[in-house]
């Protein structure tokens, strides 16, 4: 795969913000090969180093945080400390999380509690020092400077913090071989990785908001069939609400034709991002005839509504208004696993069809090329995305030698993304079709050391195949930009230069039994 990509992308980023462990219950949508940090890797996982395989293989550490009903599988209360660090190469981002988690069990009841603090670095390249050049405003009255106001003199370089709190509770019903549970994850948001890249020319970005993820889950485990392991069926119903406000400060340079100088002026915009998602997941596993082998099936459905999505300003990418809209996303997958003592193997194959429909509203009566008028509230732009994505995950865990307390993990995740956009401009009465394809691949690795008194894991992953936009300056008319909510600003006249980057995540997990 080429290292540098010239993506002539007439698209905007469409990236649903997830506040959940990177599993399939919430399906991410993105229309640009934008590298993203593993910001939400905040829970312990036993399978992270083996590509996070999950369809036919249990993850004893992560499952209780994904499906609260699976807390019934824990044999004893445990404490987890899971410091996680990720970096994005080329100095384009990074973050650190310190999650502490508790899994407890008492009689038929069980639950989990987790708190995490996180620091996320700015994503922008240090050299970016841009702003909007405005060169066609008439001279200011009297020939003096354009109105000036204080603007930040350099791009922000400080890190910002997020907080996470998770709680779940569940109950076993042994007589029915059933467990149920419910969980809530709250995320106080001040730094979502990569969002600052989407406001390419800003000097300052303040993010504030929160996200809530509510789930109920059930786990049915049929009695074990002669040592082959239990059949199991999991079901999750979730509701996820994401709400963030982006306060963006731009330093516009306004060319003054009288003085032949630039005047610099701050422009502050408040953009809101709102996404509400309903989702469900079914996961069915059965043992195969051969000892230790299991097969599983996965079905996930999401319906996301986007009452408000910002129109980002990515350089050279025509902004596509996407406000409001909705998305339907599905995962259909199959997995196979084998567990033989401490050795484990798993493979997942998932097909991920997604359809998304978004549009722009006319704020005022808008004349069309045909001479008629679109009434306020009518659709000026309609975007229909059709994705055919896939996931391939393969992972193994093996003791370094027979009976040794140390095991290693290896894995590979491949994620092809393929979509077509059909865009209808109801003002210009034009349409266009764009297709984009790219692959993201993630090798994973890990090492674990188990003792009766504790378990120590180191796991890592490195994602390649996506990039980060380079620092560029957009030139144009500020007034046109401010009208971004109702029209396409520019034809796709230039390339968006993306530089491929690697996102590397390291997680150390210490697990201590409490009694």
């Amino acid at each position, binding site marked *: 795969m080429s290292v540098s990509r010239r993506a002539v992308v007439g698209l905007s980023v469409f990236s649903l913000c997830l506040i959940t462990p990177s599993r399939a219950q919430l399906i991410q949508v993105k229309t640009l090969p934008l590298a993203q940090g593993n910001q939400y890797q905040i829970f312990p996982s036993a399978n992270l180093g083996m590509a996070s395989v999950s369809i036919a293989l249990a993850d004893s550490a992560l499952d209780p945080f994904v499906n609260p009903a699976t807390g019934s599988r824990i044999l004893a209360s445990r404490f987890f400390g899971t410091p996680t660090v990720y970096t994005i190469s080329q100095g384009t981002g990074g973050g650190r999380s310190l999650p502490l988690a508790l899994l407890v069990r008492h009689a038929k009841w069980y639950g989990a509690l987790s708190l995490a603090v996180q620091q996320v670095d700015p994503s922008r390249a240090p050299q970016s020092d841009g702003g909007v050049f405005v060169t066609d405003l008439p001279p200011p009255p009297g020939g003096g400077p354009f109105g000036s106001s204080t603007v930040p003199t350099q791009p922000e370089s400080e890190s910002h913090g997020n907080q996470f709190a998770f709680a779940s509770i569940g109950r076993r019903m042994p007589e029915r071989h059933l467990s149920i549970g419910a969980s809530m994850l709250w995320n106080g948001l001040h730094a979502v990785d990569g969002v600052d890249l989407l406001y390419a020319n800003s000097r300052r970005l303040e993010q504030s908001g929160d996200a809530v993820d509510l789930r109920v889950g059930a786990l049915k485990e049929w009695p074990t069939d002669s040592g082959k392991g239990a059949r199991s069926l999991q079901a999750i119903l979730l509701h996820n609400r994401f709400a963030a406000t982006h306060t963006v400060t731009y330093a516009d340079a306004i060319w003054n034709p009288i003085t*032949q100088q630039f005047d610099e002026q701050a422009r502050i915009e408040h953009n809101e991002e709102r996404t509400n998602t309903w989702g469900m997941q079914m996961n069915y596993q059965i043992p195969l005839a051969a000892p230790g082998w299991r097969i599983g099936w996965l079905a996930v459905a999401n319906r996301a509504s986007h009452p408000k999505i910002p129109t980002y300003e990515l350089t050279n990418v025509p902004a596509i208004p996407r406000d409001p809209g909705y998305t339907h996303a599905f995962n259909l997958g199959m997995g196979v696993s084998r567990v033989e003592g401490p050795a484990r193997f798993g493979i997942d194959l998932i097909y991920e069809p997604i359809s998304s429909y978004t549009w722009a509203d006319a704020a005022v009566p808008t004349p069309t090329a045909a001479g008629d008028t679109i009434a306020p509230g009518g659709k000026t732009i309609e975007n229909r995305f059709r994705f055919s994505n896939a996931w391939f995950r393969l992972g193994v865990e093996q003791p370094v030698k027979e009976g040794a307390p140390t095991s290693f993990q290896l894995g590979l995740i491949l994620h092809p993304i393929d979509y077509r956009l059909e865009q209808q401009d109801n003002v210009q009465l034009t349409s266009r079709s764009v297709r984009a394809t790219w692959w993201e691949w993630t090798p994973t690795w890990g090492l674990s050391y188990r003792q009766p008194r504790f378990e120590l894991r180191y796991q890592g992953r490195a994602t390649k195949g996506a990039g980060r936009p380079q620092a560029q300056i957009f030139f144009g008319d500020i007034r046109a930009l401010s009208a971004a909510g109702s029209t396409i600003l520019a034809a796709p006249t230039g390339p968006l230069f993306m530089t491929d980057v690697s996102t590397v995540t390291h997680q150390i997990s210490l697990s201590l039994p409490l009694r």
Partner: protein
Amino acid sequence: MTVFFRAVGVVALVVAAAACDETFPSEGGPLSIDAQLRQTLGQYGVVPIGPVARQDPALVELGRALMFDKVLSGNRDIACATCHTPSEHATDGLPLAIGTGGTGAGPARTLGPGRSFVPRNAPTLLNSGIGMFYVFWDGRLTRFGPPLPEAPVPLFGEDVLQAQAMLPVLNRREMRGEPGDVDVFGNPNELAALGDAEPEHVWQAVMQRLLGIPGYVSMFRAAFPNSSTASLSFRDAAAALAAFQIAELTKTDSPFDRYLKRDDTALSPEAKRGAVLFFGDARCLSCHNGPLLGGRDFASSGVPQLGPGVGRGAPLDRGRGELANFEFYQFAFRVPPLRNVELTAPYFHDGTIPTLEAAVRHYSDVPKSLRTFDPATLPAAFQSSYHGEQRTIDTLLATLDFRLRQPLNFTDAQVADLVAFLKSLTDPAARDLSGIVPTSVPSGLPVR
């Protein structure tokens, strides 16, 4: 189990191989080169530069005298125009400037005994009076904020050019001299004897010199008729220097400017092709943008390191990264505006690239250009100042602006087109600046 794992591995490899095929949407139909270029220029805010405001003639004449008068230097041996000489289009033709103690002019100028090079190339003063966001290679002065500690001037904002003019007289290597120096007449250099922490004292001492010369007294009176002689300060001298630069060194009537004013015949076909490349695939606009084609950005361009270095980074020059609170701009320097660039070789902050064609080829493959840089291309006096250690090159490549990390691999024809475009940025009036040189200056010191 082993067989199964192998099979899975084969599947993974096949899928991974398929991953190498990626497609992205492409653009629409072809446009004529003029249509293509004008669409691009409109999108990227490139507008013709208009006339600058008329400057007060008395102020300009005072500035002219000050620009060429060596009395501003501690040793009375160097004027502003020594390093910004009209014969070299308001620069000096040297990789690094040679300050006080040096002899000769232009590219023939040589270091004085015991002196070292000024760490950076003398930037041209052509068009320094328009659209200036930052001055100095590290941008320590800006129109949009207070001066940094490294530029202790009492001015900022719109007076950035005036503020800039106040700084070279403070710099020991450039104009002030070292303690113990004597001037060209053998007299003690009183400016060099002053401490570095009190710039006001230096400026006062320079003004004392100037106002001790009757010719300057009358010129200051003409330029500042409402100010008493006692109230004059070096700020006023700096204002005159700025007015001179604006009036005499603004040269913007280039073929490219005429093209921007809708004259399709102003550019040759080669220059048009070069412009399309410049604003398109060559990505030059990523830094060289706006009406001036530069001036607002900083970039670490992988330029070979030359000279004595600056500050804590010496013997290297970390550029803007040397300034307090700007450490993340390691080896980044101001992106210069490009009008008249043809005339102002050598290029970059340390003048290591001798020609326009070599500059374009540098950008064709920056890592390769840096690794294969031949110091023999430098004038002999500078060759031993080159820092070609592998560690230095690795450091520069590690901090290289990521816009420049991937080779562009220009063909020879593309290089020629880009050079043709860059030459179209030359105002013919900038080719010969001999008319701005005064016949004499009030101090009576030699002008040349």
